[in-house]
């Protein structure tokens, strides 16, 4: 994608070796830009595959009765949709953005461990090939929900569960290695003068996210290893017969699982904190508070896990603790929303496509946050838990949350990556289709949940029919609009108008001081940090 262009005048280096040619380039690259590109294309592919699974689910749920699939297959679709979106789409997309942007934003020539970077990526297609191939094995693929509670996922699991465990180990290893790389890069390779409190917020959010990943992915690895032992080696971690406890699985899983969902949103906060100041032509409001808020959210994320387990039978004291701790997280999150709005306030705003997605993020993520607050209230949660109200909540924070931020990031930085502008009219059309699609899909799910519709069911009682039909229509609109996005991206790469270096009038940050497209090697000599190019 990036052309072979010599770095800017000002030094006499003769780094003429650009990228290799052909397939070998992509297999063996240690260049953070190439690896970022690999991650992004991989995640887009997985997003479409996971999306097809969602459409199969929504097609079956369009009307009551079983029309297209049998319940066993439906459970595989819901499970794999979740696994692929979480581990194959959202997380790799953020890693891809980190790879592309973090070195440029801190004035570093590349990541700290370039070869490890290559390995971290190439593990993923291997891991996901294994996981997707389980759908074609005898007994079918994983069918126990992306949260794979024992004993449904141990004693009662299909034979392919061993491959599933192996794939999870591989994905976890990839994430851990990638995070080590990111932390080492940020802590050790910033250009002189870029103190921690001068870093762009996107870099801050990734620094903190990387620590979260290192802390909790090994716990997930522990959980699936215990599963493996229960299934094959006669242990009883989660088997009541042997003195084990299925509830312990849930504690271990959610100890990973709750920080995991913050792993999936903190980089989104970073992206939006880059985009809004650019299009408001005003510095980010409350930079210091924003950093402290992200750190608080990350810390709090470790002590709230059991709010996913309010109905499991915990004693009263436990329920109260987790209710209070969960409500606490609303505070730093609210602080961030107020700061974004204060950035917009009395700015001079224009509404190009990245800004549209960023504003939609602020509104719709906040709506997801409100339903999250409602879910935190334990006695009320007894009526919400495992219903579509929860599905609505997490899709609001993940789709118009994380996914919109990734889309916004793509529109915002693609001119830097490939030197060409996207078509603004098409971008806006994509935005409105996505916005309408996402709301028609997920807003009615609040109502079907409140009306009493459980999760993970392939067929439902008649009072839920209207909401489901509406939701399915929205899903197909949203799905189509993402295929349209693919078209826009390809069109941009192939025939977009050439972009300037600065690209956006209000943009600040080191990445905007280099040419568009970014040269294959940038900042081979560290730049001088002026306040103008510090964080936005």
């Amino acid at each position, binding site marked *: 994608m990036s052309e072979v262009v010599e770095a800017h005048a000002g030094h006499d280096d003769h780094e003429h070796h650009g990228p290799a040619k052909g397939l070998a380039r992509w297999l063996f690259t240690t260049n953070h830009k190439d690896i970022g590109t690999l991650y992004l294309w991989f995640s887009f592919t997985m997003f479409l595959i996971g999306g097809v699974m969602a459409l199969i689910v929504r097609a079956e749920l369009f009307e009551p009765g079983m029309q297209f699939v049998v319940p066993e297959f439906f459970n595989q679709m819901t499970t794999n949709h979740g696994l692929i979106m979480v581990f194959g789409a959202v997380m790799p997309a953020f890693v891809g953005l980190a790879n592309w942007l973090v070195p440029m934003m801190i004035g570093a020539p590349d990541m*700290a*461990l370039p070869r490890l970077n290559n390995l971290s990526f190439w593990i993923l297609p291997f891991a996901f090939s294994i996981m997707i191939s389980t759908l074609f094995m005898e007994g079918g693929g994983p069918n126990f929900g992306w949260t794979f509670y024992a004993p449904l996922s141990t004693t009662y699991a299909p034979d392919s569960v061993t491959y599933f465990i192996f794939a999870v180990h591989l994905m976890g290893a990839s994430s*851990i290695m990638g*995070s*080590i790389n990111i*932390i*080492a*890069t940020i*802590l*050790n*390779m910033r250009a002189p003068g870029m103190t921690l409190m001068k870093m762009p917020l996107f870099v801050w959010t990734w620094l903190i996210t990387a620590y979260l990943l*290192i*802390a*909790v*992915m*090994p*716990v997930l*690895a*522990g*959980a699936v290893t*215990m599963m493996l032992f229960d299934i094959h080696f*006669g242990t*009883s*971690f989660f088997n*009541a*017969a*042997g*003195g084990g*406890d299925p*509830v*312990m699985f849930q*504690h*271990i899983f959610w*100890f990973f699982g709750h920080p995991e969902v913050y792993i999936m949103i903190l980089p989104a906060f970073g992206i939006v904190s880059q985009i809004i100041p650019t299009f408001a032509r005003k510095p980010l409001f409350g930079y210091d508070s924003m950093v402290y808020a992200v750190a608080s959210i990350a810390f709090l994320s470790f002590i709230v896990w059991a709010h996913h387990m309010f109905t499991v*039978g*915990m*004693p009263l*004291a*436990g329920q109260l603790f987790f209710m209070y701790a969960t409500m606490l997280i609303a505070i730093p999150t609210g602080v961030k929303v107020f700061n974004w709005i204060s950035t917009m306030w009395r700015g001079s705003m224009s509404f190009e496509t990245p800004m549209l997605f960023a504003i939609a993020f602020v509104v719709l993520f906040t709506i997801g946050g409100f339903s999250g607050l409602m879910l935190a209230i334990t006695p009320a949660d007894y009526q919400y838990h495992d219903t579509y109200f929860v599905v609505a909540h997490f899709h609001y924070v993940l789709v118009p949350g994380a996914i919109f931020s990734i889309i916004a990031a793509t529109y915002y930085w693609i001119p830097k990556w490939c030197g060409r502008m996207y078509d603004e009219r098409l971008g806006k059309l994509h935005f409105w289709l996505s916005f309408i699609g996402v709301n028609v899909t997920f807003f009615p799910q609040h109502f079907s949940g409140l009306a009493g519709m459980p999760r993970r069911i392939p067929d439902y009682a008649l009072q839920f029919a209207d909401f489901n039909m509406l939701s399915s229509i929205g899903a197909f609109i949203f799905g189509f609009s993402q295929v349209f996005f693919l078209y826009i991206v390809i069109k941009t790469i192939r025939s977009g108008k050439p972009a300037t270096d600065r690209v956006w009038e209000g943009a600040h940050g080191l990445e905007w001081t280099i040419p568009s497209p970014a040269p294959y090697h940038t900042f081979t000599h560290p730049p001088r940090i002026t306040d103008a190019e510090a964080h936005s």
Partner: protein
Amino acid sequence: MNQSSLRTVRKLIMLALGMFGFAFALVPLYDLLCELTGLNGKTAGAYVYDPARESVDETRTVRVIFITNTNADMPWKFWSEKGGVEVHPGELHTVNFFVTNPTDKVMVGQAVPSLAPGLAVDYFHKTECFCFERQVLQPGETMEMPMRFIVGSELPGHVASLNLSYSLFDVTDFVDLSTEDAANNPS
């Protein structure tokens, strides 16, 4: 890559390994928390009964109801001689439970108790219980298994009834039948 990066990497690898170990440490930690909070109704192990130290509280009775269940894969019959008993706190009681192995193979069963309400776990003491060990039954054999217990007199006053449930599981595959000690291995 420079020295400071290497130092960072080393520290982070230790952190990752430490967290993996932490996951396994969660297993005993969880058991400890369950004991402390009574979560999940796990009753404690054998209780030493000293009649001199126990005082019977004649002013109140507590109803203890027994529930016996066999897991779906477990073909044994399992029942108690009574549906429940009314006891005074501090009194030692015996209730007999029975198991029958109707199959043509030697089998090993394990009973797992659960007490409701969870907060009563600290006050329900068993001096003898078949749930403390695995039970080996020959084909067609029926065994009588006494369970002796005391409801502690410190049981909070507002608790007037307890439910003790036993789930019986087939653990034949987990046990080495060739050792005579199979029946005496603690659960």
